[in-house]
Every structure is written in C-alpha cells, then in structure tokens.
C-alpha cells in the first residue's frame, strides 16, 4: 500500500502548516477590516511590524529547537540582555571594533547556552529549573557588567570626566534598512535565523536527532543517537540566537540596558506554541514558528493601529494563544490513539 509516497494535496489542508496559515490569514482579514483608514494597506506598516517582532522572532527560533527536544528555555531574555549590555560595553566605553565585539558576544551567548545544555544533558536537571536559574543568573551578570545602569555613548572616564563618544557605525547599520528602505536589517537577521534553524531541523542529521530525542529519548538513545550531545547543541543554539537578539536590541535602543527584554521568553514561547509546535516535544517546525511570530506581530500591530489600550492587547493575546492551540488540536483529534 505504498502507492503514494508523499502527502497528497488533499491532505495538505490538515497539516499543521496549513492550519497555522489559516490562523494567520484570519488575522490579516481582521487587519483589512479594521484597517485604520487604510493604514493597514501601506507597506511601511508591515515593515515596521516586521521590525518590531524581529528580536522576538530570533529568540523564538532558538526556543523552537529547544521545545522540539521537549525542553524549555526561560533564560533567552536574560541572555539577550547580558549580550546587549556586553556588546554596548565593549563598543562604547571600550571602543572595540564591531568585527571583534560581535564574535565575542556571540561566543559568550553560545557558552551560556552550552552551560545550560550540559546541566540538562549531563546532570539530568529538568530544563525548566536549569534555565530558570540561568535566567536569574544572566540578569544578574548583566547588572554586574553595566554597573546597574544603561550603557550609553555618554562615557565617564577613569578620571571622572564625562564625554559623548560618537555612536559606532555598527549601531546605525544594524538599525537601518535595505531594499530602498523597505526592509529593516534586523528583519533580515531574523529571516537568516529562521533559515538557519530550518536547515538545522530539516536538512541536517542534528535535526533528526533533535526530533528523535524530543519524541522518545530512550528510543533515540537505543538507536545510537548521541542524546547528550544533541541536547547540548540545542541549548547552545538557543544561546547563540539570544546573543544575536541582544546585539540587535542594543543597536536598536542605541544603548545596553540590563533591564531590557523582561518577559520576552514568554512571548517567544507563545509564538512557538501559536504556530502549533507541541510543548511535549518531537513535533513542530520553524516554519510554524515564523507563522506564529507573524500572527502575534499582526495582532499587536492591528491593535496599536486602532489605538487599543495595552490592557486590551494583553487580554486578546492571551485569548488568541488558547484559540490557536485549540484550532491546531482539532486536526489531531481523530488520529489520536
């Protein structure tokens, strides 16, 4: 009965991607209806929406990888803050060139992720606990690096005199646009992260191992999958993406703020879940996360275009999460054994 080897077009509609796209399409229809006097039909609105979700989206890429292994990473926002502060610290008061500062910050983020990963994989502590601890730790480290204050281009020297240094070109570059001003650089960075995650998950051996470990850890081990190394790679990747997000955040804010990104980890989780990736692991994809990021991005954009208050925005986001998950589950109801 191996007549058809690929999912047929008729069944395509029942796939998670189709479901997630329907949810996103629904959101776009809402936007077209409540278009705020045609504002919704202008590309600049969409461009700004994309810029606003990019940092969240970068974090959500790492979160997707971790959630597929049936884990969770609560530390992404703090690692992002630490990276933002470190990047600003290296570039502004110390005047490092970007070509040096960027790799150092990326390596530091990856190292923190690896540390979380080794605690999860080798010490077998639950991911929630490990990354909760890392969340608190990295936030503290961000405050140590910054001395508890924002690091701006208003630099105080050792002798107590202060002066304004010019903002390095890298800051402006990251916060600029390409394609005739139609696409923000941070959005490009976000899309590169999506692409990278997609390649890791669907084209590399590591991706198969990630799904296998999340789907059935013991079966993966007995099949010869290097379970610990796989988990380590997942958390390292999430740390790397958090550092990327931190650099983007610092450039956008033009300073390093140790308090930045509080609670972003929950937004990232929400975006992954709205896409339809299951928290129980072994299932999901970065395409779903991309759709989830856009869904939440449009929700917020539509609400702000229509001048909805913050309180409404929060309540609606909560409701949307539940609706999206229920909608995704409708698909599986019949096939569950």
């Amino acid at each position, binding site marked *: 009965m191996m007549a058809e080897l690929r*999912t047929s077009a008729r*069944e395509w509609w029942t796939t998670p991607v189709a479901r997630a796209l329907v949810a996103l399409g629904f959101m776009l229809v809402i936007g077209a209806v409540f278009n705020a006097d045609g504002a919704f039909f202008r590309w600049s609105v969409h461009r700004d929406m994309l810029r606003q979700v990019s940092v969240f989206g970068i974090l959500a890429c790492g979160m997707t990888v971790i959630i597929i292994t049936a884990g969770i990473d609560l530390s992404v926002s703090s690692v992002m803050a630490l990276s933002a502060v470190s990047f600003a610290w290296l570039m502004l008061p110390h005047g490092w060139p970007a070509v040096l500062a960027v790799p150092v910050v990326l390596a530091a983020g990856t190292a923190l992720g690896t540390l979380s990963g080794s605690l999860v994989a080798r010490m077998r502590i639950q991911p929630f606990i490990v990354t909760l601890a890392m969340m608190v730790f990295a936030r503290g480290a961000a405050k140590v690096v910054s001395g508890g204050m924002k690091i701006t281009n208003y630099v105080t020297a050792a002798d107590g005199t202060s002066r304004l240094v010019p903002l390095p070109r890298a800051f402006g570059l990251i916060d600029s646009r390409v394609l005739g001003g139609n696409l923000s650089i941070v959005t490009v960075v976000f899309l590169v992260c999506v692409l990278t995650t997609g390649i890791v998950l669907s084209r590399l051996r590591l991706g*198969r191992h990630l799904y*296998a470990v*999340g789907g059935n850890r013991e079966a*993966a*081990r*007995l099949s*010869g999958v290097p379970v610990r190394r796989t988990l380590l790679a997942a958390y390292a990747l999430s740390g790397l993406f958090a550092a990327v997000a931190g650099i983007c955040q610092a450039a956008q804010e033009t300073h390093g703020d140790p308090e930045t990104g509080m609670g972003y980890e929950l937004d990232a989780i929400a975006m992954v879940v709205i896409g339809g990736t299951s928290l129980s692991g*072994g299932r999901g994809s970065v395409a779903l996360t991309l759709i989830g990021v856009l869904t939440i991005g449009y929700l917020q954009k539509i609400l702000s275009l229509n001048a909805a208050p913050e309180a409404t925005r929060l309540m609606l986001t909560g409701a949307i999460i539940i609706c999206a998950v229920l909608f995704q589950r409708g698909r599986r109801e019949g096939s569950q054994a």
Partner: protein
Amino acid sequence: MPSEPTVAMRGIRKSFGLVEVLHGVDLEVLPGEVHVLAGENGAGKSTLVKILSGVYPDYSGELLLEGRPTRFSNPSDAARAGIATIHQEFSLVPTMSVADNLFLGREVIRRFGRVDFGAQMAEAYRLLADAHLECRPDQLAEELALASRQMLEIVRALARNSRLVVFDEPTSALSEPEAESLFARIDALKRQGRAVIYITHRMEEIYRLADRISVLRDGSIVGAATPDRLPPAALVSLIVGRDLAAARAPELRPDGDTVLDVRDLRVAHASVASRAVVDGVSFTVGRGEILGLAGLQGSGASEVLHAVFGALGERTTGSATLHGAPFAMRSPQHSVERGVVLLASDRTTLGLAPDMSVLHNISLSSLGRFSARFGWVQRKAERELVLVSARRFALKAPSLDAPVRLLSGGNQQKACLARCLLAEPRVLLLDEPTRGIDVGAKADIYRLMGDWAQRGIAMVLITSELDELLALADRILVLHRGRIVSALHRETASKDAILGAAMGQSQSVHVGGAA
C-alpha cells in the same frame, strides 16, 4: 434466559481521516460467554474494542447494551455502564499507590468529598489477597514488576463488578502460572454470568478459553464459530486469509567464524549495586548463527542483551571482542557505529519516536551513511534506501511520511527492524522481535531472519515463545538468576529441557558447551 446478548454491535464503521478501518462489523457477546476476537494486527480488533470502551466516540453503527441502544462519549461512560477494559497499554498511574490506582475514578467518598483511605486500604488488601497478588496496597505502582502491574490492572477492572470485561492481549507480560490464575478468574466470571471479550494471538489460549471465536480481517468479520467447529489450521488460514506454510526458518548453517565473544559479563542491579542481575555470563556467536537466550522473567536474559549493547553503562563489567578486536560495551552510539544493533522489546516505549515519520524512524540509526559534510542529510538517497527496505519488509503504511504512530503494531515492529537492518549490523540483538504481532508478520520476520543468517549476520535472540526459540535458534543458553544453567543444541533442545532449566530445576550445569 440466554436470549439477550450483553453487548451487540451492529454495522460498526470507523474511519481515521480518509481511511476506513472498520467496514460494518457485527459482534454479539452473550452473558456467561467468552468470545475470542482473533485477527492480525491492524485487522481492527483494538479499534473495535476502543469503540466499545468509549475511547472512540465517533463511529457509525449501533451499539446495544442488553438490547438498549447506547453510545458512549468517553471511557468513564463505558465504565459506568459496566464495561471494563484491560488495554494492551497500561493505564496505571505509576506515581500513585496500588490502592489509589485500584480506586482511581471510584474513590470511597464520605461527607464533604472526603476520601475514606482506611476503607480503600482494607478493600485493597482483600482484592489483592483474592488475586494472589503479592504486593502491598501502599506500594507505588511503578515499583511493581511488569507482570504484577498487568495483574493489578486486571484486579482493578474486575473490582468494578462489570457485566462485560474486555481483555486485550492480557497475557503478553504474564508468566505461565500467572496466566493460569488469570484463566481461573475468567472461568469464575463466566460462572457469574458475565460476558468476556478476549483478544489474543496465542493459539493455546484461544482453545483453552473460547466459547465462540470471531475472526477480523482488514476491518471485517470473516468468520465466527465455536472452537470445536474451527480447528487451529482453519483458524490460522481464516486469520491470514491464505494458507500459511509452517513458519520455520530455513535450515541454517553457521560457518564457524566467531563474530562476538563475551567474557564474564556482570551487570549490577539498578538500585542495589552489590546485587548482580547478570553474574558471570560468557558466550560466543558465530557468523550466520542464531543464539537463543531463554529464561523466565528476572533471569537476566534481557539485561545480557542490553549490557552487550552498552545500554547499561557503568553497571556493566566484563570484556568482549568483535571479530577478534576488543569491543567496549560502553554506549549504544558506540555499538551502533560498530555494527552491533539492538531491537528493544517494547516498541512504543523503547523503539519509536511516535510523531516522527516512518521514513525518519527507519533511517535514524544510519543517518551517518546518508550524511555529507556538516551532517547534511542526502534525502534522496535516504528515501530510496528506506523505500527498498520497506518493500523488503512488506511494510504497510499510508505513506513513508506518515507519523509512525498511525501504523499497526506489526508494522511498527517491522519499522523498528528495518531501522536495525539499515544500520548494516554485524551483530543483531533481538529482544522479543515478535511480541504482540500477528501470524503473518511473524512469518515475514522468521523468513527475514533466515536471510540475515545467510548474509552472515550473527544474532542473539530472546523470545518468550518456546516454539519460536526452538524453531529459530541454533544453540540455546538458558539463564536462571543471572547465570547460564544450561546450554542446548538445536538437535537436543526441547521445551521440557528449557523450561526445567529456566525454573532452576536441575543444577547440573554443563556450561562447557556454551563457550
């Protein structure tokens, strides 16, 4: 008054997505009758049972309970209506006590919703004693051995005074005396006028218990008769839908080259390091040879396989050589890379990632073969090779991209085996390769094992079916309490000899033949 059936199902149809798996099934069970439901895996037995027990509320057709049309919307509806089901998968909560599990969902409630734990405990003692189950009500369910857990499941179902009890392969984890005590309880149920539906693959159980046999094939009832009018051979051909040649591996001729040589293997107990579950086991396997390991539960046979595979890590001591070179029994990854591959006994918990596709499950152990630099998977080559192996295994799946959880038990087992074989093993460690699969799939696997032997793969086989062991193994080592107590050759082995040694009957050890 034998007229009104306890349960009558009429024209039951059920589809998953676009695939209809039951095509109008009729089934009746009378009070005081044991109705055996036979059929290959994937024939629809479990689906039918899940409709009856309220797991699948969406189906078409009619369900009559003592003549009254009924439809269950969930499992507790069915339980309240007096239908108790003992599923293949365990439904105990491992972290709750035996007593709490027994009363789960029907707690003894006093005023203000207070649970009367005292009364539950007393009742639990009585139920456990009646069932001759040796455990305390305050023990956690996860502390019990597999067989005791299965027995507890049965005790729980029977404690509900149900009018219909459904057993879905209840004996697959039970030893023979335990199974016999279960049969005695089923006889008692019959005398009380309760109806029983019993699903099994084991011939001797069918003829021991059945008042009537219904055979399901591909979602339809293809025959129903009393056992005296349906001899075993006729039953098998009804189940398979064709005449099955005697399932026996072709005559094998090991050519003598030693592939794997294990010396003085010891495995410490999982929690008590000073106790050994495997205690000084040595053996060799040659090219194209099938070495059988026999032993009752707790004999250490399964641990031997896992230890050699490296899955028990630090608990293992001893030495081994593979083709004459030292082989470290260190980790599964290390072993798989060197062509020592394990088929684990329980495909759902140890074998498959349920949401991954059939394709990705099968290729999981051999991704190294399909990977270029940076672990880039060459998906075309992968798909082609997996497809070839799926055809060789006669694997039935909606598509290679379907999640493996949608496959029937026998096909899931084939997927596990296909994964092992795709890894190009030199040594294949098979732990219960035919557990819970149908006659047709078994015959396929026997035939393939013959092929593998001919290709020179050395195999170590554990199976709880003695007939299977006798038919397949060239040599049989019998384990008892972690030691080899008997080594038998194909010509000299017999059921009596194996069972006697396994039960520790004769201690006149002739281990010399084992080396």
